[in-house]
C-alpha cells in the first residue's frame, strides 16, 4: 500500500511541475529578451512595457553585450529570443551583417522627432540611450593610499599608464563587453593602431582584472578592490547616488561613447511582440526610467539630463569610425586575447 502512495505522490509532484516545462513558447502575449542592461533598469522598463501592452517579458539579463552577441550567434539555428537590447550599436551591427537580425523601422522615431543619427538607416537597430566612457576613482581608497604619496588624480587616458597605478586599475573585458571594446577602439582612433596596442600593453601592467561583465568593474571599485577604473560614467553615477559609493567620475577628452541599441532577432518566437517592444523603447517612459535609474542619457529631446551628469553635448569625444570598428571587431578581439588575453 505504501508503495502505491509513494508512486502517487511522485506522480503528483511531477505532474505539478510539468505545466511550466515546455520550451519558451511563441504565445502571442510573451516575448523573450536578451538584455545587456543591469537587472534594475531592465525589470523597471519591462514592467512598464507589460503594463502598456499586456505582453509578458521573459528576460535573460547578462550585462555583457559581447556575451549576448555570442549567445545569439550560437542560437542562430533555433533562435530562442525575440529582442537584443542594450550595448552599443557596434555590437548589433555585426549580427545584422551575419543575417541574424530582422529589419524594422519604428514609426515612433519620426513622430518623436528623434535624430536620424541615432537610428540605423538600414533599419536593423534603433538607438535609445547614450553613454560616455570615463575614468572612475574610488576616492576613499585613493585618498588613503595614493594621495599621501603625492599621486595626482588621472585626468586623461594617458595618465592611466603611469607606474604609480600598478595593480590599482580594473576595466571590463574588451572581448565580452561593449564598453571594453569601445575603449580599445577609441584608443586606436586616438593614437593609431600600433601606438594603441603599446598603450594597451602598458595599461595591462597596471590592470588587476578584466571583468567579464560591465557592472563587475563598478562592483570591484565600489568594494575598494581597485582604485581606478575605466567604465561608463552612468554606472558610477548610479552607484554613487543609489548606493552611496565613494566614486568620482572624470570624463577625459578624446573619450568614447555608445549609442545603446535595440534590435530584433531574426526567427524569434514572437516578431510582432518584438516590434511592439522596439516601438515602446522609442517612447518617453522607458527612456525616462533609464535616465532616472540607469543614469543614461536619452536620445529623445524631451527627457532631461540624468542627475549628476554633464550634458552630453558638452563632452569631448574622439573621432569614432563606426564602420571600421565593426569591420575589425573580430580581429581586434582576437588580437587582444592573444597579446594580453586575461
Amino acid at each position, binding site marked *: 500500500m*505504501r*508503495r502505491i502512495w*509513494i508512486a502517487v505522490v*511522485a506522480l503528483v*509532484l*511531477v505532474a*505539478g*511541475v510539468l505545466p*511550466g*516545462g*515546455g*520550451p*519558451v513558447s511563441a504565445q502571442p502575449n510573451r516575448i*523573450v*529578451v*536578451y538584455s545587456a542592461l*543591469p*537587472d534594475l533598469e531592465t*525589470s523597471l522598463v519591462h514592467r512598464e512595457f507589460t503594463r502598456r501592452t499586456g505582453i509578458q517579458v*521573459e*528576460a*535573460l*539579463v*547578462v*550585462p*555583457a553585450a*559581447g*556575451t549576448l*552577441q*555570442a*549567445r545569439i*550567434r*550560437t542560437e542562430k*539555428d*533555433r533562435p*530562442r*529570443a525575440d529582442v537584443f537590447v542594450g550595448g552599443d550599436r557596434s555590437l548589433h551591427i555585426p549580427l545584422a551583417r551575419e543575417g541574424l537580425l530582422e529589419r524594422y523601422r519604428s514609426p515612433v522615431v519620426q513622430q518623436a522627432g528623434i535624430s536620424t543619427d541615432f537610428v540605423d538607416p538600414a533599419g536593423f537597430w534603433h538607438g535609445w540611450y547614450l553613454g560616455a566612457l570615463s575614468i572612475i576613482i574610488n576616492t576613499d581608497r585613493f585618498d588613503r593610499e595614493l594621495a599621501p604619496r603625492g599621486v595626482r588624480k588621472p585626468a586623461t587616458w594617458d595618465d592611466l599608464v603611469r607606474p604609480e597605478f600598478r595593480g590599482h586599475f580594473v576595466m571590463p*573585458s574588451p*572581448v*565580452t563587453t561593449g564598453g571594453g571594446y569601445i575603449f580599445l577602439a577609441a584608443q586606436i582612433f586616438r593614437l593609431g593602431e600600433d601606438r594603441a596596442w603599446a598603450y594597451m600593453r602598458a595599461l595591462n601592467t597596471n590592470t*588587476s*582584472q*578584466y571583468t*567579464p*561583465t560591465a*557592472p*563587475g568593474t*563598478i*562592483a570591484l571599485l*565600489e*568594494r*575598494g*578592490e581597485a582604485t581606478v577604473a575605466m567604465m561608463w560614467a552612468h554606472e558610477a553615477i548610479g*552607484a554613487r547616488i543609489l*548606493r*552611496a*559609493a565613494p566614486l568620482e567620475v572624470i570624463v577625459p577628452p578624446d573619450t568614447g561613447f555608445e549609442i545603446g541599441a535595440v534590435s530584433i532577432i531574426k526567427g524569434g518566437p514572437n516578431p510582432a511582440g518584438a516590434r511592439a517592444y522596439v516601438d515602446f523603447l522609442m517612447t518617453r517612459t522607458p527612456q525616462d526610467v533609464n535616465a532616472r535609474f540607469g543614469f543614461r542619457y536619452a536620445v529623445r529631446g524631451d527627457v532631461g539630463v540624468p542627475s549628476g551628469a554633464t550634458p552630453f553635448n558638452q563632452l569631448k569625444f574622439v573621432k569614432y569610425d563606426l564602420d571600421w570598428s565593426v569591420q575589425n571587431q573580430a580581429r581586434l578581439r582576437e588580437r587582444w586575447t592573444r597579446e594580453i*588575453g*586575461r
Partner: protein
Amino acid sequence: MAVARLGELRRQAADPGLLLTFLGAAAVLGLFVLYPAIRVLIYPSWQDYLGIPSSLRWIQAARNSLVMMVISTASATLLGLVFAFATTRPDMPARRFFRNAAMLPLFAPPFMVAFAYILMFGRQGLITRGIFGMDVNIFGWPGLWVVQTIAFFPLAMLIIAGVLEAVNPSLEHAARNLGATEWAVVRTISLALARPGIAGAMLVVAISVLADFGNAVLIAGGFPLLATESWFRLEGMGDLTGAALVVAMLVVPTAGLFLLERYVVARRAYVTVTGRGSRMERAPTPPLLRWIVVAICVFTTAMIGLVYFGVIAGAFTAIWGRDWSLSLQHWHLAAERMGSLVTSVKIGVLAGVITATVGVLVAFLTSRRLPLRQALDFLAVLPGALPGVFVGVGFVLAFNRTPLGGTLWVLAIALAFWHLPMGYQAASARLRQIERSIEEAAINLGASGLRVLWDVYLPLLLRGLVEAFAVSFIRAVTNVSIVVFLITPGQLVATFIILGMIQSNTWGAAAALTTMLLALTFVSIGLTWLAVGRVGRLPAMG
C-alpha cells in the same frame, strides 16, 4: 563456462520483462550519461587538441587547477582527519557537536563559503575592516584555498571517520600492552589502519576541488582555472570548441582520480584479523594531542559559523561595508525573485524523482545475474568521474539542437543523472543487506523478476528511495556548475540569480535569496529526517 552462460541467457529469456527493463535502463543511461560525454570529447578536432599546449592561458589554467588540487586537498584532508579523530574517540569532548558542525558546509550552496568569506574577510569585511581595520585582498588563490578547505573537509571527515570507527580497539590495547606510548599507538595503529580511508578521502576531495566552480567563480578573481575557464569560453565568447577543449582537459585528472579510487584504493582494504569484534573502550588519547585537536576543531567550527552568520547578516545589513544599520529592504528585492526559487524547486523535484527511480531500478538490475551488468554498473557510477562543467557542456552539445533543448527537462535530466551515483550506490548497499532468501521464497511462489522488484524489494527500499530523492533534490536546487550552462530565460533558477546579484554588488538581496535557499534546503532535510530517520551522505556540491 560457455555452457553456463548459455544457460543463464536461456533463463533470462524466460523472463522477458526483466530483460526488457535491463535494455531500457541501459539505453537511458547510454543516452544521458555516455552520449553527452562522448559528444564533448569528439567535438573539437585533432588539430584543436594538438593546439592546446600553445595556448598559454589554458596551460596556466591547467597548472593552477592542479596546484589548487594539491594544496586544497592536502589541507582539507588534514582537517578532515583531525575532525574524524575528534569525533570517533570516546574521550574527546563534544563529539556530537563537532560532527554536526562539520556537516554544515555540505548543505550550503557551492558558492556560499566564498560569498560569506568575501563579506567577512574581504576589503569591506566585517572582520578584516570592521573589527581589525585591515585592508585585505581576499581574491585569488589564497582566498580560494581557505574557502575550498572549509567547503570540502567534511567529505574527508566522513570517509576517514568511517574507517577509523572500524579500527578494532583491541589492537590498540594490544599495542599498549606491549609497551607502546599513547603517541606511538596513535601513530602506528590508528593512523596506519586509517590509511586507505585517508587515501580514499584525498582522491574524492581532489575531484571536488578540481571540479569546483561556484567558489572559484566568485573568489578566484583573475586567477585562471580550468573549471571557470570553460564557462568564460562558452558564455563569454560563444566558443564552444574552446569550452569543450577545456573540460576535456579537466576530465583527464578527475577520471584518473576516480579510477584510482575505485580500482586501487577501494580494493586494497586493510583487513584486520582479530577474530570476534570487541566492545572494549578505545585506548586513551594523549592529553596534548587531545587539546591540539580540540583547539583546531573549535577554530574550524567558528569559521563554519561565520559562513552562515555572514550570509544571514548580509541579508539584514543596509549597505554592507558602509551602512551597518539593520534593514529589511533586501528582502523585498529577494521576494520579487521568489519565482526563481519556485523554478529551482520544480527542477529539484523532477531531478530527485528521476534519480531515485533510475537509481533504485539500476541497483536492482545489477543485482540480478544478467549479462553485461558490469557495464551497467560502470555507467551508473561514471558521472562521479565527471566534473559538473563537463556534464554542462556535454548536455549543451548533445541536446541543445533537439526539442529537449532550452526546456526544464534538459536541466532536470542533466542534474538527475549527474547525481545518479549517489542514489545508485546507496540503493545497492541497501539491497546487498537484504537476505536473498526472501527473494527466493517469492520466486518459489512463481514471481517474475519485475514482480520481485515491486513486491519484495521496493517496500524494503522505500527509505533508500526517499533518501536518494532528498539528496538529489538538495544538490539540484543548490547546483551552479551545470545550471550556468543550461540556463535559459524561462528557466531562471535561484542559484543563477544569486550569482548575478553577487557579481553586480547587490549583496543584500543575494544574501537574502541565499538565506531563503538555505531555509529550503534545511526544510527538505527535516522532512527527509521525519520520513526516513536519517539522511544519506551528501558529498560536496559542484
